[in-house]
């Protein structure tokens, strides 16, 4: 029981037309970990997240959550089982207030049905956690990008997940906001939620991830501690070199 992975994928494969977006990827995430998923654009990172959350259907391979097969379930079932996510391009409900966005997560995503009062209390405390309590009544579409991303985190946490998939939480944020996002992720882990994250901001990944998985052209090319990844020749060739260069511009 103790050494069972929270999330585990075996030979996960998904083609788009003739293109293997994700090909034969084995991966696992253990309870309490922060695992990073990196790779160049088009490597299949978001596709892998979409497959886990069933935003797109898995055609070949298997994904298990707490030992139970979840591939083939509908997105709402997977959310109720305890996997929540945020989106690379934010998907808040723009016409609903910040509070309502989070309420939706607690009212529909939580494994057990909550009373309205409990849901409301939980949503308020999550907004405080995400630093958004002053904007409760603002329509979500009016928030800044950084705040919308925090709102997505609060909404995802409202579904009481055991595993949170963060898809480029830091993309498009300025250095101060990135520091804030990193702090938020550590706080999420401290709440006992396991984190699996896609990110391009390498410095941040090196700091907070316990383990990093590298995808390239849909295949897993490396996996290890941040130090091992930083030192891996394969990874430097396909990814990090380019990233360091881009960072120095």
């Amino acid at each position: 029981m103790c050494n069972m992975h929270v999330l585990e994928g075996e030979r996960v494969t998904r083609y788009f037309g003739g293109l293997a977006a994700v090909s034969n990827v084995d991966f696992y995430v253990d309870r309490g970990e922060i695992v990073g998923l990196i790779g160049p654009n088009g490597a299949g990172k978001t596709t892998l997240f979409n497959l886990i959350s069933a935003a797109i259907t898995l055609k070949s391979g298997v994904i298990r959550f707490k030992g139970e097969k979840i591939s083939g379930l509908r997105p709402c079932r997977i959310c109720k089982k305890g996997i929540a996510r945020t989106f690379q391009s934010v998907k808040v409900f723009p016409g609903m207030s910040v509070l309502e966005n989070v309420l939706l997560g607690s009212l529909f995503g939580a494994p057990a049905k909550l009373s309205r009062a409990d849901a409301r209390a939980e949503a308020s405390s999550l907004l405080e956690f995400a630093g958004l309590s002053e904007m409760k009544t603002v329509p979500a579409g009016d928030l800044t990008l950084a705040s919308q991303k925090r709102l997505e985190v609060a909404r995802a946490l409202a579904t009481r997940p055991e595993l949170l998939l963060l898809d480029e939480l830091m993309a498009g944020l300025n250095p101060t906001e990135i520091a804030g996002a990193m702090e938020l992720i550590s706080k999420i882990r401290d709440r006992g939620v396991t984190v699996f994250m896609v990110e391009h901001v390498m410095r941040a990944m090196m700091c907070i991830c316990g383990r990093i998985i590298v995808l390239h052209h849909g295949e897993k090319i490396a996996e290890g501690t941040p130090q091992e990844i930083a030192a891996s020749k394969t990874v430097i060739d396909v990814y990090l070199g380019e990233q360091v260069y881009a960072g120095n511009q």
Partner: protein
Amino acid sequence: MIMKIVDVLICGLLLGGIYALIAVGLSLQYGVARVLNISHGELIMLGAFGTWSLYTFFDINPLISLVICGPVLFLAGFALHKTLFKSLLKSSGSIGAFEGSSLLACFGLLFIIQNIAITSWGADIKGYSYLSVPVNLGGAIFAANRLVTLAFAVGIGITFYLFLARTRLGKAIRAAAQDPAAAGLMGVNINHVLALCFGFGALMAGFAGVLLSMCYPVKATMGLEYTIIAIIVVVLGGLGSIPGSFIGGFILGIIGSIVSYIEPSLSLAAYYIIFILLLLVKPTGIMGK
């Protein structure tokens, strides 16, 4: 002269209430469930014929028919989505393809429902008289049934607005309207919510049909005109906005009433001119974003 203007304006408001109700229904079906329901008017016709039959054969008060025809049409709409539209959604590769195929399916439904209505009720005009006593409204005389109709239309609209704003299911419907994929990933059972929305759309059509039958004659081919009006009001008010549907409904009702005062046969043409102007000037509608 001033009396006449007030008369025409009130007449427009009375008409507008029904238009709004019809548009709220279509707005739910198209704005949330993504089905441009060309057979929406046929559901209105079923509500109207249902009420006429209940009144004529069983002597049932039309206002009681609201709670009979409404729920029956709700269930029919819900079942229709769970079977026909759900499988179309599954077999369509994209939401665009689904909109196309569901539109064609609705054309089929239009003819099927209309033909069934003609065979069962005949092709001639039916009507009954209920609450047709005259009421004096600031000098202008109106039939009581038209005032009751407006009151019910506004009441139903406000109730549904509060339902969307306040309840758990209402939140899910609004979330599904704004981003169905994200709503699904937050635990909302999207297929179920879409079917409910289609059902609620049919419910609104049923209510509108019941109310219409109290003031206007009923016939098997009456549906298309109302479908067209619903589409125009939805575009006028902004897709998915209930206040927008009411504003649009009242505007169209008043314009219709003014045009009919001058030349009754031109009202539908006037609606179309407004529709085309609107598409050119503000395609998102009055309350649209």
